[in-house]
């Protein structure tokens, strides 16, 4: 283990390990305090950033924060690292890499940024993000181009898609359909119509899949459905011949945390193969969907790496992206304020984490979206989520999540509303996914400027969609 040190203002700062250096360099957040790895002073944090800036990027190929032998995520990261893609930046330090990214971003050089993805490891990207300010994360994030598709195309420039999340406390088909109709009428659902089921029963999952599939077919909507059940439940649904567009799973950045989720890389591969076999795509073949979130490893007490030392939650979050990346996802989103104030305490921490996760995910080649959300015991409110949403829109975020009136009546937290998505699109000049936009036009849901119109219930489109909601 290499001890690294620097002297600033007459004081010497020492960092016992690579994970210690990364943790101390991380912008303040409650989860790292809880894990016992946060910087102990503001000056120590900057000192760690100073040391990190001089660290060669290649260090992360030689020195691990979570051991290769004991962790399959580390093995996946190193065994799939692409030295050719890494070559253009192989000689840079972390600080120099930040400068290079900002330069490319300013030049609009999406190709150079996007071509790096398979050459970068999560730890490299996490380290770089720790040296970046929020505006840096936006400026570079918007130039990392990741385009995916199944029945709609996501991640194109100038677009902001949304997942329509029609959750219901008892998975009642009529209630779910009402929320779907409400969202469609407001231009949401181009990323996916994705339901968190109230229970993980295979029969329920199949029923919900069939329900959404019927709505999609009836109105010929160019989007995909997903029931966010455990991957083993989706495998059962696949066996039963259910219309599975997307295999969903929550994933985390250590093997131990994934074990806590009941997930292995083999299971994910098997389910993906099953969904691919169905051939349900029209514009692409991305058939997986992953959710992540800072703090998930810590909450499972699976956040330790080499020598049992805690790894900071943002670095672990980036490692989860390596898992997701391996399965060529259509969608990945971080759930940024759901887990609670012991991981991200207030609006400042949530905004920062949302921008970090988007930047890091995109740089690693993920179709990154964000569930911009909060719980009632966090120091976060709708002003904070407005701020993050508009920043994410500026950062080229692939998609956000929207629920009726911001209020998820099943999961009991607040995400964005359908109108929040419309506001972000309007303010930033962003549009829905192209296939979905064409569908909105066919349904006469757009005004002359191509914006989702304010509906009256007797408009033909409203009448047609409301018909779906009649029991």
């Amino acid at each position, binding site marked *: 283990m290499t001890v690294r040190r620097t002297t600033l203002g007459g004081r010497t700062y020492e960092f016992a390990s690579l994970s210690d250096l990364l943790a101390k360099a991380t912008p303040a957040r409650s989860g790292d305090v809880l894990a016992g790895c946060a910087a102990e002073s503001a000056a120590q944090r900057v000192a760690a950033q100073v040391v990190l800036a001089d660290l060669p990027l290649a260090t992360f190929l030689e020195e691990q924060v979570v051991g290769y032998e004991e962790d399959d995520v580390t093995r996946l990261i190193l065994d799939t690292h692409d030295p050719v893609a890494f070559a253009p930046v192989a000689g840079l330090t972390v600080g120099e890499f930040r400068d290079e990214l900002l330069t490319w971003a300013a030049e609009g050089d999406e190709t150079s940024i996007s071509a790096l993805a398979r050459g970068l490891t999560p730890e490299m990207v996490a380290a770089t993000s720790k040296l970046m300010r929020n505006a840096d994360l936006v400026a570079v994030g918007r130039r990392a181009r990741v385009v995916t598709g199944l029945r709609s195309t996501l991640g194109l420039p100038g677009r902001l898609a949304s997942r329509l999340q029609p959750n219901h406390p008892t998975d009642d088909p009529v209630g*779910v359909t*009402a929320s779907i109709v409400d969202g469609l009428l407001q231009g949401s659902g181009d990323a996916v119509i994705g339901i968190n089921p109230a229970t993980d029963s295979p029969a329920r999952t199949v029923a919900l899949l069939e329900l959404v599939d019927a709505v999609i077919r009836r109105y010929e909507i160019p989007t995909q459905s997903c029931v966010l059940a455990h991957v083993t439940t989706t495998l059962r649904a696949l066996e039963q011949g259910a219309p599975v567009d997307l295999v969903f799973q929550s994933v985390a950045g250590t093997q131990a945390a994934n074990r806590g989720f009941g997930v292995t890389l083999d299971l994910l591969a098997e389910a993906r193969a099953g969904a691919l076999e169905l051939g349900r795509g029209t514009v692409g073949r991305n058939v997986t969907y992953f959710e992540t979130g800072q703090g998930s490893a810590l909450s499972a007490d699976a956040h330790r790496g080499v020598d049992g030392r805690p790894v900071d939650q943002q670095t672990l979050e980036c490692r989860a992206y390596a898992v997701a990346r391996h399965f060529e996802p259509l969608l990945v989103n971080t759930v940024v304020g759901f887990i609670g104030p*012991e991981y991200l305490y207030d609006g400042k921490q949530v905004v920062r984490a949302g921008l970090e996760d988007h930047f890091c995910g995109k740089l690693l080649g993920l179709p990154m979206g964000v569930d911009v959300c909060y719980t009632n015991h966090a120091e976060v409110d709708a002003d904070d989520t407005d701020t993050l949403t508009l920043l994410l829109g500026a950062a080229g975020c692939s998609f956000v999540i929207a629920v009726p009136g911001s209020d998820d009546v099943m999961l009991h937290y607040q995400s964005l509303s359908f109108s929040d998505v419309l506001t972000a699109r309007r303010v930033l000049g962003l549009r829905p996914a192209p296939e979905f936009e064409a569908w909105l036009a066919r349904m006469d849901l757009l005004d002359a400027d191509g914006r989702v119109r304010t509906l009256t219930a007797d408009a033909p489109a409203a009448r047609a969609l409301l018909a779906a*909601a009649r029991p």
Partner: protein
Amino acid sequence: MTVTGNDPWAVLRAATRARVALGRAGDGLPTARELEFRLAHAVARDAVHTPLDPAVVRAGLDGVPVVEVRSAAADRAEYLQRPDLGRRLAPGCALPREGADVALVLADGLSPRAVHEHGAALVTALLDRLTGWSVGPVVLATQARVALGDEIGAALGARVVLVLIGERPGLSSADSLGVYLTWDPRPGRADSERNCVSNVRPPHGLGYAEAADVVARLLASARELGASGVALKDEGPALPAG
């Protein structure tokens, strides 16, 4: 379902408790809808942050002995960020080792308001049903997490601890009380070793008598099994939907 009147959007509203068919002002929410949402959030926030007032609970308990303790979390901000501290007693908290069967803990949790509104009534309903058990004093715990009950139960020498705790407020339920049963309480018990009865908040959620009946059945089963948690199921009649 019958939809009456001239509002076609009523179809959607009748179908779900979700906030559908809110209408829009431009791309935003109309003022009235916006303020409704804001009020729901404000009520939930107040439920989290208004401190537990022991006098309110004592008044409702009408002479039942009460002992007050607090966790190692110094204030609300620390409580919210350091769940580990909320699971430990503050130094100097003294509890009499009386050796009663049942330790009853009333904990503020994430909604002191739930304890204000339902705590005393649920304790009374429980005491009515715990006739075959000796019960210690009601321990009123502030800045408390569920697992604080393990240390309290162990200190009292109880065979089982019941933690009645304010649940995380939702937008439409800021006053929900939960009951956690842990057999042979001692620090280090896992969540999988507990049983929970959730959403006690009449008239919208579970009533006091119904909740107390379930807890009494769970207690009896736990005594038989000598354990609580995943191995223990409530075999009583199905609960009405909350």
